[in-house]
Every structure is written in structure tokens, then in C-alpha cells.
């Protein structure tokens, strides 16, 4: 079975631009979470969606937004990019919304110049 997939693999943007990252969860999983991992740090929670509703939001500015589609795939959008947004963006899927094991995708590496 396919695991969590993310696209694109790598992305280079300039300050002020907008970016959209995509995630497809494991088949049958209904929850998707997004994490930001800055080099040398552990992942930090950004959002969780379950059954297309937001279930959690981390301490990130309003420039970050996300949504989940009827097929349970998800998009993370970041507006007005800053240099500090350069990071590995990880998507994790789980069967249910809470109390369930999360499986991570390979991530999208975003570089902001």
C-alpha cells in the first residue's frame, strides 16, 4: 500500500510569494496533520484536519492556512513568504482524528530566498 505522499518534493520561492503544498494520506485515513521542521529542530505542529474540519492549530501566523478535501487530501498554503519559512514541511496521516498513530510523508523542502 502507498504511504503518505507529498508534492512537490522541493520548492524554491522568493520573499513575499505564496506557496501551496499538497498531501495525500494513506488510503482509508481521514485525518491529516501538518508540521514544520526547521533544520536542526524537531517538527512543530501547524494544523490538523479531520473529516474536512480543523481540529487543531499550532502557534503559527495567519499567513498559514490549510484545508482538507472530500477525498481527504489536504493543502497547506503560506502567504507572504519570509526567509524564516524555509523548512521541511511534513504531512502526517492517521485513521482517526485523535488518539491514533500518525504516519509521516517524506516532506516538501521549501527554500525562501
Amino acid at each position: 500500500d502507498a504511504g503518505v505522499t507529498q508534492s512537490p518534493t522541493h520548492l524554491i520561492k522568493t520573499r513575499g510569494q505564496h506557496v501551496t503544498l499538497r498531501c495525500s494520506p494513506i488510503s482509508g485515513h481521514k485525518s491529516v496533520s501538518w508540521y514544520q521542521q526547521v533544520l536542526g529542530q524537531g517538527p512543530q505542529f501547524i494544523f490538523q484536519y479531520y473529516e474536512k474540519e480543523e481540529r487543531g492549530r499550532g502557534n503559527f501566523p495567519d499567513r498559514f492556512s490549510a484545508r482538507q478535501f472530500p477525498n481527504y487530501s489536504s493543502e497547506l498554503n503560506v502567504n507572504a513568504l519570509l526567509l524564516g519559512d524555509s523548512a521541511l514541511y511534513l504531512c502526517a496521516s492517521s485513521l482517526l482524528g485523535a488518539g491514533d498513530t500518525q504516519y509521516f510523508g517524506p516532506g516538501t523542502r521549501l527554500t525562501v530566498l
Partner: protein
Amino acid sequence: QKEVEQDPGPLSVPEGAIVSLNCTYSNSAFQYFMWYRQYSRKGPELLMYTYSSGNKEDGRFTAQVDKSSKYISLFIRDSQPSDSATYLCAMRVNYGGATNKLIFGTGTLLAVQP
């Protein structure tokens, strides 16, 4: 103070050694404890999952949780060069069915020398 503290390493050991990786935490509400392994430029892979205090063993890996000391450990026996990776501890509270947000440590970089 961070909720979860983890020594970033790097930790270098010879092949066959026993490796001990540790995390401390400050939030007494954490009930679920995980260890993830992350190879360079890849996503984290779940290794061990423990609820509350106690030990759990899976092959060469043993996870220990001591809630009274707010301290968790991962032991790797007979370490192999293929174990070379960053090891991340992660924790979460029981949010009562709301969210499954994980709090991660910074990760410890392990190098097993052949």
C-alpha cells in the same frame, strides 16, 4: 523552557554497542510517548509507541517511560550502521477526542561506526 528537551548530539558509537537516547519533559499531562527515526532528508518513521509509564520491547529496541521523573528513554541493542539517523522523541496529551497534536524534541543525531 521547552516542553520537551532532547540532547541533539551527535552521538557516535561503534557497531554492536548499546545506545541510550533520552528525553525529559515538563508537562505532566503527557500520556502518550513515541520515538521516531528520521533518515537524512526523509520523513520521520514511527519506531515505538508507549502509553503512560513502563517498558516496551520490539526486537533490538526498548522504550522506557518514567512519568514520576518525566523522563523517557530508547535503548538500541547490537547497534548497526543502518541505525545511523536522527531519533526524535514525541509526546502528546489525551485531548479528549479533539486533536492528536504531537510535541517533538529536537532530535538526537546518531552515527554507528562500522
